[in-house]
C-alpha cells in the first residue's frame, strides 16, 4: 500500500534536542511525482525534518519509509544511490574547487570507477558531459572554472541546485533553495525547479518562505509549527484554513 501512492512516508517521527522537540510526532506522506512544499515560521523544525528524511540526523523515535522500504538509520552516503538528493539551506559546497569540479564530483559519485588511481578523472566522459549539461542548465557555464567560494550568493544557490541535479535523483529535498537570493533571481530558479520536476517525473519537497512562490507551484502544502504538523492540503485549502491564518500566515507572511 505504501509503495504505490507515496514515495516518502514518515511514521510518528520525532527528533529531540535535549528538552526541545524540534520534530514532534510527525506523520507525513509525500505523493509520488508531486511538488510538496513545507512551510512554517523559523524554528518550526523544517530543516530538522529534512535532516531526518535525508539521513543527516537519526530520529529520536519513529521511522522513515521510502518507496515502501524502511530507510531509518541508513548511512548518509547510501541516500543518493537509492534516489534521494538533498540541498542545503546554508550553502554547503567545496569552496576551493571550481564550480565545474563541484558539479562533476556530484555526478562522479553515481559512476562506477571511483576507485581508479592513475587515470585522469576527465576520462570519465559521461560525468564530464553530465556536469557540463547541468552547469548550463543552472546558468553557471560561464563561471565553470571559478572557485565556488568566489561566486556571489545567488550563484552559490544555483550551484547548490546543480549539485543535486547532477546525480539525477528521483526525489529532491530542497531546503530554502532561494534563501538570501536577490528577489529578481527567484522566479528563474523556481521555474527551473518546476521544469525539472515536471519533465523528469520527479518528486520535489521544498521549503520556501516566499508565499507567492509556494502558492503558485505547490501541489500540496504542509504547514509546520513548533515541530508539529499544523495543517496540510492544496494551496487553496491552506489559504482558506482559519487555523493556519491566525496561527501563522496572518502573523508572519503576507498572502
Amino acid at each position, binding site marked *: 500500500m505504501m509503495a504505490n501512492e507515496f514515495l516518502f512516508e514518515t511514521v510518528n517521527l520525532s527528533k529531540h534536542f535535549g528538552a526541545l522537540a524540534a520534530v514532534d510526532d510527525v506523520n507525513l506522506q509525500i505523493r509520488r511525482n508531486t511538488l510538496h512544499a513545507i512551510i512554517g515560521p523559523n524554528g518550526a523544525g523544517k*530543516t530538522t525534518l529534512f*535532516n531526518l528524511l*535525508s539521513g*543527516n540526523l537519526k530520529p529520536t523515535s519513529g521511522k522513515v519509509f521510502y518507496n515502501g522500504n524502511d530507510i531509518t538509520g541508513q*548511512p*548518509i*552516503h*547510501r*541516500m*543518493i*544511490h537509492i534516489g534521494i538528493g*538533498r540541498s*542545503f*539551506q*546554508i550553502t*554547503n*559546497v*567545496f*569552496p*576551493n*574547487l571550481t564550480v565545474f*569540479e563541484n558539479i*562533476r*564530483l*556530484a555526478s*562522479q*559519485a*553515481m*559512476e562506477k*570507477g*571511483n*576507485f*581508479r*588511481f*592513475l*587515470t*585522469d*578523472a*576527465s576520462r*570519465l566522459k559521461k560525468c*564530464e558531459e553530465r556536469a*557540463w549539461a547541468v552547469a548550463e542548465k543552472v546558468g553557471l*557555464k560561464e563561471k*565553470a572554472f571559478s572557485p565556488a567560494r568566489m561566486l556571489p550568493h545567488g550563484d552559490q544557490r544555483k550551484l547548490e541546485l546543480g*549539485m543535486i541535479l547532477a*546525480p539525477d535523483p528521483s526525489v529532491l529535498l530542497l*531546503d530554502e533553495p532561494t534563501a538570501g537570493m536577490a528577489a529578481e533571481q527567484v522566479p528563474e530558479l523556481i521555474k527551473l525547479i518546476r521544469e525539472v520536476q515536471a519533465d523528469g517525473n520527479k518528486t520535489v519537497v521544498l521549503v520556501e518562505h516566499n508565499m507567492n512562490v509556494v502558492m503558485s507551484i505547490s501541489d500540496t502544502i504542509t504547514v509546520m509549527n513548533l515541530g508539529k504538523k499544523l495543517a496540510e492540503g492544496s494551496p487553496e485549502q491552506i489559504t482558506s484554513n482559519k487555523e493556519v491564518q491566525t496561527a501563522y500566515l496572518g502573523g508572519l507572511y503576507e498572502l
Partner: protein
Amino acid sequence: MNKPRVSFFREYRTILIFFLVMLVLPFIIGLFEGSTPELVWNNQGTYSKFIQGLLIEIFILALFAMSYDLLFGITGLLSFGHAMFFASAAYATGMLLKFTSFPFWVVLVLIFVLSVAQALLFSLVLPRVKGITFALVTLGMASVFHIVVTSTDLSKYTGSDVGLQGYPVPAFFNASAEKLRFYLIALFILVVTYILYKSFVKSPTGRVCVAIRENEGRAMMLGFNTANFKILAMIISSFTAAVAGTLHALYQPAIIPSIADLGFTVTGLLIVLIGGVGTLSGAIIGAFVYKLLDFGLRRFIGEGASFFLGAVYVVFVLFIPYGIVGTWMVRRLGWNQACKQGWQRLLRVFKSPPKD
C-alpha cells in the same frame, strides 16, 4: 569547453627538469673539484660524494614529507603519528637484515605488509574521531611505538637509545661502496613517486580525497563512502613513508630512535608547510630548504642553531602560510590576501564541520 589534454612531458616538465639537473649535478660538482665524470661515475671525488650524501638525505626527507602531504594537504587528515610509518619500516629493515637471513625481497614484502597494517590500525579510529582528536590519537599510537623502540628491555633487538647498528646491507644498496648508485635510486624513487602522486590527485579517487578535505560531510551526501577513501589515502601514504624509512635504514649506518618521535613528524609537517600544503612539489622544495638551512646553520652557529631555526620556521609559517609553491601559485592575490586566505585554509583542518 573541456581543457585540452596536455602531453606527459608538458605536464611534468618541471619535475623532469629537476630529474635531469639532479642527474648531472654530481658530475658537475665533480668538475669543480677537478674529478672527471669518469671518476665520479666510479665513486671518486670527495666533494661530489659529500653533496650526493646530502642530497640523498634530502630526497628521503622529501619522500617522507610528500607522504605526509597526501594525508594532510590532499585528504585533510592531520596525523601526529606519521613518524611511526617511517620509523617502523626503518627498524623492520634493520632488524630483519640483522636477525634473519631472509632474501631482501622478502624483507621488502614484509615491510609492505607492515605499512598497510599500520595504516589500517590508524584507520580503525578514523570513523570515530576527527580533526585534532584524530591527531592526538595517532600521536598516542606513535608514542607507544617510540616507547617500545627506546625501551631498555628490548635493547638487544632495537638498540634502544643508542640505536640499531651493525645490520648487513645488501651489496647492491651499499651506499658507502656505491654512493652514486644509491643516489640515483633515491632520486628515481622520489621522481616516480611524485609523478604517481600527481596523477593520483587528478584521478577519480584523488578528486574524492580532495573533496573530503574541502567538506567531508558534503562528500558523503554526494554518495561517497568517505571512510574508504581516507583508508586508501592512509595506505598509500603509509607505504610511501615506509619506502622512505627503508631507504633511510639502508643509507644510514645506524637507526636512531629520534626518527620515531613526535619531532620527526613535526619535521615532515614543517617541510610541507614551508613548501606549500597540498602542492606535493612543495614537499621536495621544503625538504631542500629545511635540510640546507639546518645543515648550514649548524655548520656556522653550532648547536645553538636549533633555537634560531625554530624562530625562522615560526616566522616563515606565520607570514607565508601558503608555503613557497602555494604562494607562487596564488601570486596574483598579493601578499596580504595570500596570508589571510592561507591561514583560513590551514585552520580549516582544526574546525569541525558546520552543522545545518
